């Protein structure tokens, strides 16, 4: 059930939704949003793409198994938790770069931690959904 309307729409929706998800991720510390929601929105973008073009096409677009995003995300989150230990602070202490950046505000371990969550969520959702949709019988 390929629909050319959906396919055409997805071509534009995918980048917009992904951008929106990153927007949510970055603003999370100050306004509604955050890594979890961002990750879910990004997953929805890919799921939409897979509905329009088939899961195989989406897998090709991703270039890698979504499962591989999980360890990357977990590693980033864990590193942000352990980073302060290097500086002799207890783990989970927030570390921040000096100065403000446009759009993002200030950059610190909270943001990288959220980035880890974002990647894990995408990995988990896509792994579950794609595994189910690719399983035949």
């Amino acid at each position: 059930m390929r629909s050319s309307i959906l396919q055409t729409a997805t071509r534009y929706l995918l980048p917009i939704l992904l951008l929106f998800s990153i927007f949510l991720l970055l603003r999370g510390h100050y306004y509604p949003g955050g890594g979890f929601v961002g990750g879910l929105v990004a997953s929805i973008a890919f799921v939409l793409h897979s509905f329009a073009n088939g899961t195989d096409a989406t897998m090709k677009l991703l270039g890698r198994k979504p499962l591989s995003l999980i360890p990357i995300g977990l590693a980033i989150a864990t590193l942000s938790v352990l980073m302060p230990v290097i500086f002799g602070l207890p783990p989970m202490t927030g570390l921040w770069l000096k100065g403000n950046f446009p759009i993002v505000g200030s950059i610190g371990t909270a943001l990288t931690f959220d980035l880890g969550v974002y990647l894990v969520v995408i990995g988990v959702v896509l792994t579950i959904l794609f595994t189910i949709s690719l399983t035949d019988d």
Partner: protein
Amino acid sequence: MLLTVLAGLIVAIFFVPFGKTFKSGLSIVLTALPIGIFSYYLTHLPSISLGKEIFQSTSWVPSLGINLDFRLDGLSLLFALLISGIGIAVYFYARTYLKGHAYFDRFFAYLSLFMAAMLGMVLADNILLLFIFWELTSISSFFLIGFNNTSPDSRKSALTALSVTGLGGFFLLAGLILLGDVAGTYNISALIHARGLIVNHGQYPLILTLLFIGAFTKSAQFPFHFWLPGAMKAPTPVSAYLHSATMVKAGIYLLARFNPILGGTNAWSYTLMIVGGFTMLYAAIHALLRTDLKSILAYSTISALGILTFLIGLGTADAIIAASVFILVHALYKASLFLITGIIDHAAHTRDISLLSGLRKVLLPVAIAGFLAACSSAGLPFTFGFIGKDLIYEATLHANSSWKLGLTTLAVLTNICLVAAGFMAGIKPFTGSLPIHYQTIRLPYISMWLPPLTLAVLGVLFGLMPDTVGNLFAEKAVLAMLGTETKLNLKIWHGFNTVLLLSLLTIVTGAVLYRFNKPIKGKTLWLLKFKNFSPEFIFKKITVTVFKFSEWYTQKFHNGYLRSYHLQIILFAEALLAYKLWLSGPIDINFYGLAMLSVYEVAIAILLIGALIIILTTRTRLTAVVSMSVIGYCICLMFVFYSAPDLAMTQFTIDTLTTVLFVLVLYKLPPFLNLGTKKERYRDMAIALGFGLILCMVALQVHHEPIETATSDFYGDYAYTEAKGKNVVNVILVDFRGMDTLFETVALSIAAIGVYNLLRLRLKPTEKE
């Protein structure tokens, strides 16, 4: 001190990469471990015997009050020397005994681990630390007992030993925590000062019971004694080590260590005297009815442990002196006898004393060792056993209870049996004529017969200079067990008195008993008749019942039907909430004071109810799924109205994805069927309505409760100042409760990997059921 404890653990770890290299002659290096530890403690002997104590503390988990606190006093030193000293004998012996064994390296790793655990236990000054090492001895002894892992019997006895001692460990832990809680400290030295507080506390009987179960299981007191004879399936060096000086003495050590803290009360004394007294006679009689060398030794060990428990229960200065000396006496002769048994087993391939005889002609040094050990065990004059036995009689005769006559009779009877049992194990195999098929037996390597001979000779040497030995080893141990300074006056010759008379009576009767107690298989068979009443049988019955129960339980609650899980979860939640509601007092349902309904809310409520009706009546799955998502979106809207944008956003995306997931799965499901009976549907309806009702009541009740805002205020106040974020929800997620989030993501990942693996699992046709 810390190093000596860690050394064993470190050596054990080294076996993982380098185990193979030790299989050759290089294994001699291993003996450096016990020798080094033994020398270390030997150098401390003079200062400790003069009354010094050494304390060492290393920070470990200060927040829990667990530090690596080690204290070396007389009692610890006595045990440390026994552990490392007998360890030397066992290391040398086992090198030859297990030569060429496939698991040679593994054995020494377990042994080193075990030795480290024992050392840590006797040195620990913190009761939680003591418990950790206590458990470690249980675990490492499990591997040692089950060393012959190809034999089902051996595995079974290892499991029995572990479950009995492990069970005791649970009780001990509970007892120790309770004790620490009552006294407000986990340090043994501080606990001694808190004795008055503990003994008069309402929890004292409970503490005592829990502690006793721990000690009795470990030290094989009736009715937990049955694991010990089973543990004889282990290789002989292990039996020698575990049952002479270490594992089974752990319980005795515990009782001795806690004597100044908990002892001296009637509950303490009578329990220990009754349990110990019964065990010592029961096991001593049992020992006489066995024909297997190791069984005889096992039961005589249980009996000796009973004597020690009994003496600690007696609690007088005499009794404690007797106990501390007897620990040393027993360790020396029992280790020696076990090692001798191993040699006989190796050479003659049997341990049945009804078949063994005349081995002195081929194994002379072993026979001498056996003879000396048996003499010490029998308490013949000029052996260390004689001193030990004297002290025991001294203790029972001078007990300040009115039934000292009874106690003395009990001790004499036990010792008579032990004399005979000692002769059976140490002398019987070597006397008589040598059967022809044993004539080819050659004396084993010196490293096998020297250790038991040394130990046996020590048993005699110590007996010749009891005063020195007593002052060096026992006096400060008595101090630690009793809490007061006591002078030991150990002499070879006390003059003609009642004690000497009793000693002679014991030896003569024991010898006569040995002469006439013919080892016959029939007696062991006769014992089997009482199998159904033995604690071992009852324990097995309990195990089987537990298995049956858990099977039934699993079938009932873990049956694989999602609907049954849902039912259980919701029912349980209902029960919990209802109980809490009931506890919170009169339920006050009051609609007064609620805000007016807005148009939006009414609209959403109508949507919700409509979607619900569709779900309940629809005949296709797709409709049901879509209606479900309508409900989800309605809730989302609610969040929006009540200004929770983060929640609304999350709920919205989750609902979308859930619907997608459902649609994906939908294709793979069989057609929609209604399998529930009418009755079940009514039941489900009742449960669902109940859940709704209870939640409704909770919501109304919450409305009347004063709102506690301390937590949310804290987050609100500090979100920006401490974590530089303005979105409090997100700050909580990534900063204040960041650890939770991290582990939630881990949980999610595990779920995803689980789904992936379950669906991608491709079983070969043969693997499918």
